[in-house]
């Protein structure tokens, strides 16, 4: 039989399953600090799936803790990537990006650090369609090595990624075969979770249900730690079952300066702060910004460095937008 070689890890659900069988995650309290969670579950060379998209539910506290502890050779995987990936690229901790889109938003235009590294050939940049990456996670979540789709047919994306066709054995129709992605580790920020890792997401799930199922290791951070009975009141909202979870980090405003549905909006001032540094100093500016972040002992210390009325305003605006 003909088999293709991928330019990137993938189509290895079988291995991911064997890893899961060999390392179960029994129901027991999994709460720990971000420092413990990152030390325990993020390793050099990992493919890191970042939960949320763009500036929504970015697991900032967990990401900055990786920066703090330093890792090397990471791949950052996220369908819509914001400046968080640039911090890993500029500091040399990530040398691979898997995404369908990178941009800063808030009127800031192109991602300058990413541009610099891609245009000078210093990182591997893997461009997928949005659905293509979504189906990679979904295949990983379903435990199958590939899924068929119309996505990327005819375009240069599939050609460059060396994707091959999946032929329907009933109709002969040829579709794109998207290889599964089981990230080495996923980081996902949620609104509420219990000590076992059962987690609920309010608003838009994005791809996080699939990311959680696909991941080989899973660290969640949560705005709120709740009793399991709270989850039982609305179990259809539970997107992540505890048996997938390795670590639960309780971190209010854990996505700040990005947004968390129902809790706080994104802090545009923080975007400005970052982008002005990049505008003035290029990737050195991104390194300065990362250095500022990791200088705080932890995310709470970072939050304490922000004017309380600014944080309060972001929370108030978000709460004011909620449906009554």
């Amino acid at each position, binding site marked *: 039989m003909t088999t293709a070689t991928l330019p990137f890890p993938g189509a290895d659900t079988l291995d991911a399953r064997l890893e899961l069988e060999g390392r179960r995650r029994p129901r027991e309290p999994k709460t720990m600090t971000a420092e413990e969670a990152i030390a325990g579950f993020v390793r050099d060379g990992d493919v890191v799936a970042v939960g949320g*998209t*763009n*500036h*929504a539910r970015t697991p900032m506290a967990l990401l900055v803790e990786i920066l703090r502890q330093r890792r090397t050779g990471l791949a950052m995987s996220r*369908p*819509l990537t914001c400046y968080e990936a640039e911090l890993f690229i500029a500091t040399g901790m990530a040398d691979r990006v898997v995404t*369908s*889109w*990178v*941009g800063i*938003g*808030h009127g800031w235009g*192109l*991602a300058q650090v*990413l*541009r610099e590294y*891609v*245009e*000078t*050939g210093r990182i591997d*940049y893997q*461009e997928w*369609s*949005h*659905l*293509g990456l*979504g*189906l990679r*996670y*979904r295949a990983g979540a379903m435990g199958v090595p590939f899924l068929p*789709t*119309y*996505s*990327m*047919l*005819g*375009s*240069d*994306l599939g050609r*460059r990624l060396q994707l091959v*066709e999946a032929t329907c054995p009933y109709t002969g*129709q040829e*579709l*794109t075969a998207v290889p599964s992605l089981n990230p080495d580790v996923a980081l996902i920020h949620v609104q509420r979770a219990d000590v076992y890792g059962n987690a609920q997401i309010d*608003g*838009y*799930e*994005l*791809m996080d*249900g*699939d990311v959680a199922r696909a991941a080989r290791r899973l660290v969640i951070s949560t705005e709120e730690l709740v009793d399991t009975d709270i989850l039982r009141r609305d179990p259809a909202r539970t997107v992540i079952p505890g048996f997938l979870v390795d670590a639960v980090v309780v971190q209010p405003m854990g996505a700040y300066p990005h*947004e968390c*549905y*129902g809790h706080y*909006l*994104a802090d545009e001032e923080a975007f400005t702060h970052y982008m002005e540094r990049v505008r003035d100093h290029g990737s050195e500016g991104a390194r300065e910004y990362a250095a500022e972040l990791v200088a705080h002992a932890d995310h709470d210390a970072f939050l304490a460095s922000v004017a309380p009325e600014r944080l309060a305003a972001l929370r108030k605006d*978000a709460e004011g*937008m*909620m*449906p009554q």
Partner: protein
Amino acid sequence: MTTVSTLAEVRPDEVMTIAASRLLEDGKVMFAGIGQPLVAAALARRRQAPNLTVVLEGGMVGIHLLPGELPASTNEMRAAVGAEMLTSATDIFLLAQRGCFDYGFLGVAQVDAYGNVNTSLIGDPDRPKVRLPGPGGANDIISMCNETVIVTNHEPRRFVERVDWITSPGHLTGGDSRQRSGLLHGGPSWVVTDLALLDFEEESRRMRLRALQPGVTVEQVRRATGFELLVADEVSTLDPVTDDEVRLLRRLNGESDD
């Protein structure tokens, strides 16, 4: 609809957005991106298409579009609050693949004679001169929606014979090449610019001038196009934008309060 706007300084992008919004029929489903597509949708909803359903890649279906409060991202609270349905980002594209969405709307960095779209890079793919944001949902939208409308400023650097990189497949090399690639549905139907309305000739699938924005000549369009442009036998002129349309557009964009 034929009253010429008397408002001072109607901008080219306003003319373009209004022209695009007029294509949207009532009761249909539109997969919209942030910016111009969303404004065009909001405009259509307040005019000829009150029952247009707007879908966003963040998984939102049937979103609210409040004047001056249009969302800045497809994945943020403002885009979600008031939606009729929230599903996952992957599932929203699977609805597109099933065939549920009448329209997709795309912007471009480059578009070529066959409607292929580039939003990924300028120059050599191995070492691009400019790395752009990439497809986001655009590759899926143009591959899966029943038809896709391209909305862009009309400039020679954007309208090129061959795009540097096919981020989002149009009619590929023309003829039945799109079908032969396995893409059996949809494709670009209209290109709306500040100068003109264009479609794709049925056989060759090359871009063809169909109508001019008021006051624009065929020659102007040709000069702004970086490839040899087909011109329909009859080239009409689009209805001028009206005061009502411009006022409403500015109110939606939060540029005025009236």
